[in-house]
């Protein structure tokens, strides 16, 4: 199943936009988390946690879910496949795990936002505030690794990918010669 050139370009554009947008949104989230943790200005702290919830709910969550759709579609619609190369598999795992961790952290984000809105943030919330900085940093690092993998595409085929390619080679050498040309 190979996509047409036009469709592939469209899905690729969407995928790059979503993933890079996700990276940028997490970077912004991290800046707000650091401001909320370190600032001595009460208004700044309140604004930071209120903005963090908005960014998480309306920007980061949609941008984290979209690549889970565009990534597999793009992989399965090209000769790369979804399970044939380690870098694609690792990227998929990073995306899935990051999305799960994000969902787990929505509850404390909502809590901090609510407490900031009511002006009831206390020293007991300090651990949660630190957790926000740590989680955002970890998420940013994971997304940077995923972006690096997408650009460098390190070599390494999975046993499944190798088997599939071996079957293709033995079945039709002509197809093998054109393997990968659709990507250029």
């Amino acid at each position, binding site marked *: 199943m190979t996509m047409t050139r036009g469709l592939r370009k469209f899905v690729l554009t969407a995928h790059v936009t979503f993933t890079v947008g996700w990276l940028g949104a997490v970077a912004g989230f991290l800046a707000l988390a650091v401001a909320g943790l370190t600032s001595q200005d009460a208004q700044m702290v309140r604004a930071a946690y209120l903005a963090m919830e908005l960014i998480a709910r309306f920007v980061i969550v949609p941008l984290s879910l979209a690549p889970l759709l565009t990534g597999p579609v793009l992989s399965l619609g090209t000769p790369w496949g979804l399970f044939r190369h380690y870098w694609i598999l690792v990227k998929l795992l990073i995306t899935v795990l990051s999305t799960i961790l994000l969902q787990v952290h929505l509850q404390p984000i909502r*809590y901090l936002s609510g407490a900031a809105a009511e002006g009831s943030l206390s020293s007991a919330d300090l651990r949660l505030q630190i957790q926000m900085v740590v989680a955002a940093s970890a998420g940013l690092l994971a997304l940077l690794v995923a972006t690096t993998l997408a650009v460098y595409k390190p070599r*390494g085929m999975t046993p499944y990918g190798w088997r599939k390619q071996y079957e293709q080679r033995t079945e039709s050498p002509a197809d093998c010669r054109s393997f990968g040309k659709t990507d250029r």
Partner: protein
Amino acid sequence: MSQTNVGPDRGSTTSTPPGTPRWVKVLGIIAIVLILLFVVLHLTGNNLGCPPPGGPHTPPGCPADTPSGDAGDTPFVTRMATPPVEYGVQQT
């Protein structure tokens, strides 16, 4: 996953599958360490996704009671006026 410019890796030409690349092993070890760290943190009471016990917005499934050694709900304004060194000290 920007699959442009370069075609897929053609892999080994031999009849035996290639081994796992070193970079995959390194990333795997890092992932295992992070998962173990997460499990240890969770087992030691640092529940991810749960606000501090006794807070006003405690969700279902999270501990609701305030532990005896907890700092309690020091108002935000008080916290701002409190030197950072005293964070976490029991308020009386």
